């Protein structure tokens, strides 16, 4: 399937190549470079490029192109998904996946790649298994290795590989048993100029970090599971149980993983927590335009809106802007015509605003296009159903808006912020010990965005190792 892999940085240098079958000359990448030159932005390089004898499938992440060379028919998503998995694995191994880091750890990278594919077919892609085969480099291990002469390469078959739960290794032990669940929801909305919502959707994910001893079997239930559309689970979740009882029941992988992602499409439920007042006008005769936007909170249930960033692509005709923000900082790039305003927190008493004038090209008539306004924001701990004292977990509502103006305002709310995991959701301690098999029971009720909140988490019946 996958013949070779080339890693190419944005300046067009191949800095790593790996072949799983016979060697493919790196000149095959010329076709890729051609496409790269044609595309104005890196994101616009087509993911699939046919060449006379090969096909190049690429993904672009962390400013690196991962270009897979294939020779025969294969589902393109198969390859693309695998490449993403490679990137995820690197990230998992090295913390970040960047060109210098890959170059630093080239041997580990090579070993990992060797394990991930055999003859072009994925072999071991669970990071749990990989980490047992090839241990991730740490400073401590490097020191130990130099002293003891041991290696980073495991000499036993990873236990997970043969078990029915390949995502979890056996013999996990922690002194503190903890489980963290982050609920991150993102609003994605388009709003017209009068402020009414055209479409709005919520994308949610539950990311978990589970550090529990043995083979814990967890169940997790929701206040209102009906609202979850389009759920997509980690393979560990027992699907049948979800189908019948709407309960998440699973033996979690060890460490970080994405438990599920879901989608809430019901429009009426989505209350957009911010609004943008706009006053942008161009005049035909004058070379000056007026620009004013104000951002304000709406239905935030008393939470502060943080991390607000407003960006806007101004029309070509705008030469420069002289603006004064009531808070935060702003920049305008006259070349790309990109205005960005880092607002920070919104204080409901004193709404942040950005006012000023735009200088337009003299003599030119008023621009046709509507400036687009993007808005990103975060709301931490938006736990609305604060009925329970234990609802001590945070959720993040991250979003961004796009405002389109002059004619139609389209609010586009997109959130792509990786929120750093900082909060402990539950600290779980063994209640009783029986035959060294800890038994956990835990019920935590928590609320979040009203009805679709997590109801409780139960760590039931922990079986022993194996």
């Amino acid at each position, binding site marked *: 399937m996958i013949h070779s892999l080339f890693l190419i940085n944005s300046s067009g240098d191949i800095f790593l190549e790996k072949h799983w079958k016979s060697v493919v*000359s790196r000149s095959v990448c010329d076709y890729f470079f051609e496409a790269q030159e044609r595309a104005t932005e890196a994101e616009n390089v087509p993911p699939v490029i046919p060449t006379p004898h090969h096909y190049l499938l690429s993904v672009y992440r962390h400013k690196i192109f991962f270009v897979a060379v294939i020779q025969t028919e294969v589902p393109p998503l198969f390859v693309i998904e695998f490449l993403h998995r490679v990137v995820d694995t690197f990230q998992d191994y090295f913390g970040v996946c960047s060109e210098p880091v890959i170059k630093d750890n080239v041997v580990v990278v090579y070993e990992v790649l060797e394990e991930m594919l055999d003859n072009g077919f994925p072999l071991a892609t669970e990071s749990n298994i990989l980490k047992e085969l090839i241990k991730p480099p740490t400073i401590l291990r490097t020191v130990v290795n130099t002293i003891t002469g041991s290696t980073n390469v495991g000499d036993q078959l990873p236990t997970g590989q043969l078990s029915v739960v390949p995502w979890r290794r056996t013999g996990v032990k922690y002194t503190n048993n903890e489980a963290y669940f982050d609920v991150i929801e993102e609003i994605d909305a388009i709003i017209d100029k009068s402020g009414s919502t055209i479409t709005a959707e919520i994308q949610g994910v539950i990311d978990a970090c589970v550090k529990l001893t043995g083979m814990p079997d967890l169940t997790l239930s929701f206040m209102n599971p009906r609202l979850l559309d389009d759920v997509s689970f980690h393979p560990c979740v027992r699907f049948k149980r979800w189908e019948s009882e709407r309960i998440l029941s699973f033996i979690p992988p060890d460490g970080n993983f994405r438990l599920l992602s879901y989608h809430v499409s019901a429009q009426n439920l989505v209350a957009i927590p911010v609004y943008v007042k706009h006053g942008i006008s161009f005049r035909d005769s004058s070379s000056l335009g007026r620009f004013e936007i104000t951002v304000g909170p709406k239905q935030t249930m008393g939470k502060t809106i943080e991390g607000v960033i407003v960006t806007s692509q101004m029309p070509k005709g705008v030469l420069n802007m002289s603006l004064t923000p009531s808070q935060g900082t702003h920049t305008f790039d006259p070349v790309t015509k990109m205005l960005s305003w880092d607002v920070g927190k919104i204080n409901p008493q004193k709404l942040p605003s950005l006012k000023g004038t735009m200088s337009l090209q003299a003599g030119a008539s008023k621009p046709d296009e509507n400036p687009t306004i993007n808005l990103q924001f975060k709301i931490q701990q938006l736990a609305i159903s604060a009925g329970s004292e234990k609802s001590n977990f945070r959720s993040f509502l991250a979003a961004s808006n796009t405002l389109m103006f002059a004619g139609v305002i389209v609010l586009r709310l997109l959130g792509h912020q990786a929120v750093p995991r900082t909060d402990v959701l539950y600290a779980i301690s063994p209640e009783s010990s029986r035959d060294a098999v800890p038994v956990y029971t835990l019920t935590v009720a928590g609320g979040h965005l009203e009805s679709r909140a997590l109801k409780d988490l139960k760590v039931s019946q922990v079986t022993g190792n194996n």
Partner: protein
Amino acid sequence: MQRFLQLPGAVVRPGGRGADGADQEASSPVLGPEGGPPPWYQALQPEELRRLQAPEEDTTPEAPLEGPCPEAGQGQGQSQNQNQSQSQSQPLRHDDLKEMLDTNKDSLKLEAMKRIVAMIARGKNASDLFPAVVKNVACKNIEVKKLVYVYLVRYAEEQQDLALLSISTFQRGLKDPNQLIRASALRVLSSIRVPIIVPIMMLAIKEAASDMSPYVRKTAAHAIPKLYSLDSDQKDQLIEVIEKLLADKTTLVAGSVVMAFEEVCPERIDLIHKNYRKLCNLLIDVEEWGQVVIISMLTRYARTQFLSPTQNESLLEENPEKAFYGSDEDEAKAPGSEEAASTALPARKPYVMDPDRSLLFYHVLSPPFPTLAPVLTSLLPTVPLHSIFGPPLFPPSTTSCPNRGAQGPLTCPLRSEVQYVVLQNVATMSIKRRGMFEPYLKSFYIRSTDPTQIKILKLEVLTNLANETNIPTVLREFQVQARGMDRDFVAATIQAIGRCATNIGRVRDTCLNGLVQLLSNRDELVVAESVVVIKKLLQMQPAQHAEIIKHLAKLTDNIQVPMARASILWLIGEYCEHVPRIAPDVLRKMAKSFTAEEDIVKLQVINLAAKLYLTNSKQTKLLTQYVLSLAKYDQNYDIRDRARFTRQLIVPSEQGGALSRHAKKLFLAPKPAPVLESSFKDRDHFQLGSLSHLLNAKATGYQELPDWPEEAPDPSVRNVEVPEWTKCSNREKRKEKEKPFYSDSEGESGPTESADSDPESESESDSKSSSESGSGESSSESENDDQDEDEKGRGSESEQSEEGGKKKTKKKKKVSEGQGEASSSEDGSDSSSSSSESEETSESEEEQERPASWRRKTPPSSKSAPAAKEISLLDLEDFTPASVPPVSPPTVVSTSLATDLEGLTLTDSSLAPSLLSPVSGAGRQELLHRVAGEGLAVDYTFSRQPFSGDPHMVSVHIHFSNSSDTPIKGLHVGTPKLPAGLSIQEFPEIESLAPGESATAVMGINFCDSTQAANFQLCTQTRQFYVSIQPPVGELMAPVFMSENEFKKEQGKLTGMNEITEKLTLPDTCRSDHIVVQKVTATANLGRVPCGTSDEYRFAGRTLTSGSLVLLTLDARPTGPAQLTVNSEKMVIGTMLVKDVIQALTQ
């Protein structure tokens, strides 16, 4: 071409080259500090390096070359020259590495290997280190070893001879107790692509395919395509291995072996039959990559094996829930009943989905989606849904799968690459199945942050989805987008508006107005695009839009984009009669600027001139001539040609008269309006989700999906595997139910059955002793048959332990092995008593594996042709050729079978439950005394034959005799008063019984495994008699045949409470074999089980109603008391049986 492209690159990127040079130097151990060399990429100044390098480079003539263009050398990679020059220019550093590799210190070796691997990763040539590296293949340090493997895989192809040095290490590795080492040795061995070692690889793969560890077997599956690509002559052998691995039950192996199957022998779809259901069921547990491969394979399978779903569309609409899930439940519960289900259903419905296909649907398509890695979710629906279920398939209400797949990925914050691929597929699907996506229209709204290619695809989908109802919203969205800033995208949007307008008549005017508004846009490109689209739209109804044409005519002054100008000119020319005043003026303007126009515009000017000349020659004659003269001297020969051609055509002259008469027809023929179609229109002949589909061109290795078959191929081919994965709890029942089928289909079990039935029939016909011994022999022989099979199963099992795979077709080698074992154990059982002990010990060892083999044996369906074949094969060699499947009357015969067989001469009358030949196990008993019955005497016997109609019933023969002097009329059974559970199948009414006559009738009674009496009324026309039949416990069962091993195994399960043991002293009369057997069988309807020792008697039977086993063992030692043991789940029956048997024996 590549060279061309590459060289400028090298020139253009001097910076890159410099860094490159630095890398090379930095990776040299010479330059690095001794202890911990710096990361190899660490930059040094190129100038510095050159200085450092200078003395070394002087020695090589190519050195100067290396400096200026190392990148070019890289680019051509294969170029031997460059490689050499490179390696020659670095002799010292490689010497250094070699030295490090030669030391004894693992740490130094490791360091060297790490640097070498880094070189490989960079794409540098490290091939001259091969001899030094290959030496370390046997290194103890596992990381060094791993890196050496990496190196070998990369370079072995180039240095085949040297690579051979490493082979013995791998061969040793293949025998390592550590499964990881075995697997990695196989991986490397199969990856090094040296043709000489093909036989070794073949051997290794074969061995690994039966390895204990599933991980090693998985590796073997991976190795198959590697070997195949190296030497396709091995195909046949590889297919054998694939076949073997396909039978593997571990999920780990499944994905890999299917992948191998797809690469090596995708045409051998017959290999899948037996594994089809297993694969469907395993699928959910297979890792996601394997799932993808299996699903695509199953897709193809479905297309060849099942009928097209479009045929039963109506059915699905009607009752989809039932069609899918109902049949599936059947499937899960009792695969055996599926024949029944599928035969029963067609009667009701015209077509019914093959249960196997619903299996595919249920197991394959619906559940895995959410459990898969989120992104693969999107892949799945696009692949199989469409291709398996064909066009309009799911009524949207019944399944959410398409939605989940199609829409989920778009709304999830997905990676743009994935979105790109998914949207491509959605675009194709949305043409034919709009309904599937319509509810999610808004998910396809374009966001300003999307990359252009995604935007364009979304636009495509939106356009495809637009219909009468949603067009206003779609158009509004388009309008917004048309004012965006992304030029390419705006152009695409305008085209999309045009397509909507052509597709939906109602909005055509709205669209046209919108487009005309865009004409005043300041951006030329937008205007040009609008013009082109307007032109297409106007072609549909030109008459109504003279205004627009006029407006367009004005635009010729401003628009500079050639395509737009050309379009306007064409429009004016085409519809010049609608704008009679403006057209000549436009021509005048164009004639003025003719020389400055683009070619495409010039051609249209000529066109316009010609058309005007034809319609309005008075005004335009001169202009036309002027234009044509200009064109005549144009630089472009197309234009010159066109001018010449036009002139001849329109200007009347002496020679060209014939054509010029038709000029008007030629130029002003009505032209059909263009159909604006999606570029995705014809893509659906490629399988969705495939690379070919994405590229809209056939990719290498693309396999067309076969068309649905006309006739459904025989579904029974998939039956064989059924019992292997069904739940054990079902097994009992099924087995019971299908026992008749079992005995029927198996010639092999024939002799044994006869052994059981013989004694009875013989006891009747009083030809006992001679046949007794005969039957003993035949039973032991048949047992051997059976053991053979067991042995064989075990033989293969011990080879691949837990796999326990069933071999459908035996390999020669296997057979001979099996024979070896079988014959040895045969000897044992033949020389019975002497070796019985050793047998027993071996049995206890095998106890573990037994369930598997037992299961293998018992289910009927697994024992069809192939099994029989095996047996005969063995028989031929082991025994005598005489043992051709003997046909003899089985005791337990299904009723229908019995009647069928009635006519056969081979089975004599004793087989069928005939009314006229009474047989009895326990002698006649009186039911009604003739005094009490007023002349009617009724006796009954237990015939010990299966009751026709219900296998759970004991068949009772009832003998009527009329001792009165009047005929007795209307003999029948009146209302029975039965305890719960009991039931009676009445005998047919006997109309009349003349005085002195007697008659026999058969009735069936289900005693429910109890000795409760069945009370019923016996009615004549005049009288009613209350009678009751109480069965002796021995009649509540039917004999079963089993081998000694099975007997012991079953006995082992029925211990404790279920075991009843009594001691007894056998009277001297009971010392001979056949008397004991006769007495026991007379007491209880049991079958004798062959026994190794002479003093032990074993009997087995099953209770009729519940089918629980009753095992009876009599240990009649010559000295001391004998011991009677009964093992049965039914303890009451067991206790009573012991009592009865002891009584019978001691009397």
